[in-house]
């Protein structure tokens, strides 16, 4: 025995794996509901090539319990990459499932052009967790678009965690136009120590030779 060209894999190929050519979307959508996770995963892989599958994939994501299939759906949606996908991800940010929320945020970070139009609403959401997601996504959009949104958020944000995150992003962006906004945070009476620390860090990034203590 030892090294051989003869195929040593003797297991039968499952029906769902037998095809080698790309299949059309018709039967694939039916297979999204198959009881076997592997069959659903294979159908998702093929559906990633059909933009018309975006809505069914988004709908399936809300019901899918198998993590292997979930990941395939997220990957497929990222490949499909559209405003419809981004809007679908925003709805998942409010899911009770932490994994779905975090993956939705990650996908939005990877599609900044489609996420940008949705950011103003996210950053004004009454839920601070949604606003926090918005800041994490804002960190991935072009700086020119992020600056006004970030400045506006820093000026009016009342939740300490969101404000800390926004100030940190401001420091990373490194644009001096944000200096006055961060200084205003530091000058507020009763500013939370964590926020103050984050603001000082950001000031050092923005103005390394003259950060106000």
């Amino acid at each position, binding site marked *: *025995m*030892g*090294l*051989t*060209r*003869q*195929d*040593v*894999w*003797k*297991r039968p*190929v499952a029906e769902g*794996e037998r*095809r*080698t*050519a*790309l299949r059309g979307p018709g039967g694939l959508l039916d297979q999204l509901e198959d009881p076997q996770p592997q069959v659903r*995963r294979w159908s998702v*892989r*093929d559906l*990633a*090539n059909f933009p018309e599958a975006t809505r069914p994939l988004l709908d399936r994501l809300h019901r899918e319990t198998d*993590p*292997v299939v979930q*990941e*395939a759906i*997220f*990957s497929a949606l*990222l*490949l499909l*990459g559209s405003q419809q996908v981004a809007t679908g991800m925003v709805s998942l940010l409010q899911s009770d499932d932490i994994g779905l929320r975090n993956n939705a945020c990650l996908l939005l970070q*990877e599609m900044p052009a489609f996420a940008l139009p949705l950011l103003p609403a996210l950053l004004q959401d009454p839920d601070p967790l949604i606003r926090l997601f918005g800041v994490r996504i804002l960190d991935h959009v072009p700086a020119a678009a992020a600056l006004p949104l970030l400045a506006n958020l820093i000026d009016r944000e009342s939740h300490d965690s969101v404000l800390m995150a926004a100030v940190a992003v401001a420091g990373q962006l490194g644009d001096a136009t944000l200096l006055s906004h961060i200084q205003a945070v530091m000058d507020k009476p009763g500013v939370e120590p964590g926020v103050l620390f984050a603001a000082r860090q950001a000031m050092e990034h923005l103005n390394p030779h003259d950060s106000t203590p």
Partner: protein
Amino acid sequence: MIQPHNLLYQCLVASVLDEVMATKPPGDGLRVWTMPLAGGVEPYLLTIFILEHWPRAQAVAFNVVASDRDPQALARAGEGWFQENELAFLSTDMRQRHFQQERDGWRASKALREGLHLTGVELTDPVATKAFRGMDVIFCQQMLPALATPLRRRAAGHLFDALNPGGFLFLHPAESMAQSSALFRVRHFPEGLAYQKPGPCCP
């Protein structure tokens, strides 16, 4: 040229292969998939390391499937002729056992050249990668980081699908699967780290 990673190969033969074989039915062979070809020499070095250092290498039938998207690398691997510095990983004895000196280089033995299964494939191609199934071990070095995130996630999914449950994926030591897929279990061995596809043997 990708330098062979002695520790990865040591991890393979010292820790991984026996664990893989323990989960397989009697008589089932071993399938190893390696990519890219790194100028053609990588699959030879991997195969020789298995033959020389795995005590069960002659008792178990095993396939080595080696793939690349570059036709020139495939052609070079098929010829099996390399300069001595490309074989520096091998001891003199190993080189002489598996290669024959030819001109100012070395040609791999006929058994090696004909034993390797060389094939072209684009790792991000969802149709082409469906032919790669039932793998027990995959080496995929310095390919995923070169891909944009959507394609990198897709490629990681193809690697996951190519592996048998319980199978292992080796990346370059400087790489991590963290940004590509959350489906693999990270396994730490004395010699190094590998990513395992969960299965009945290892949920």
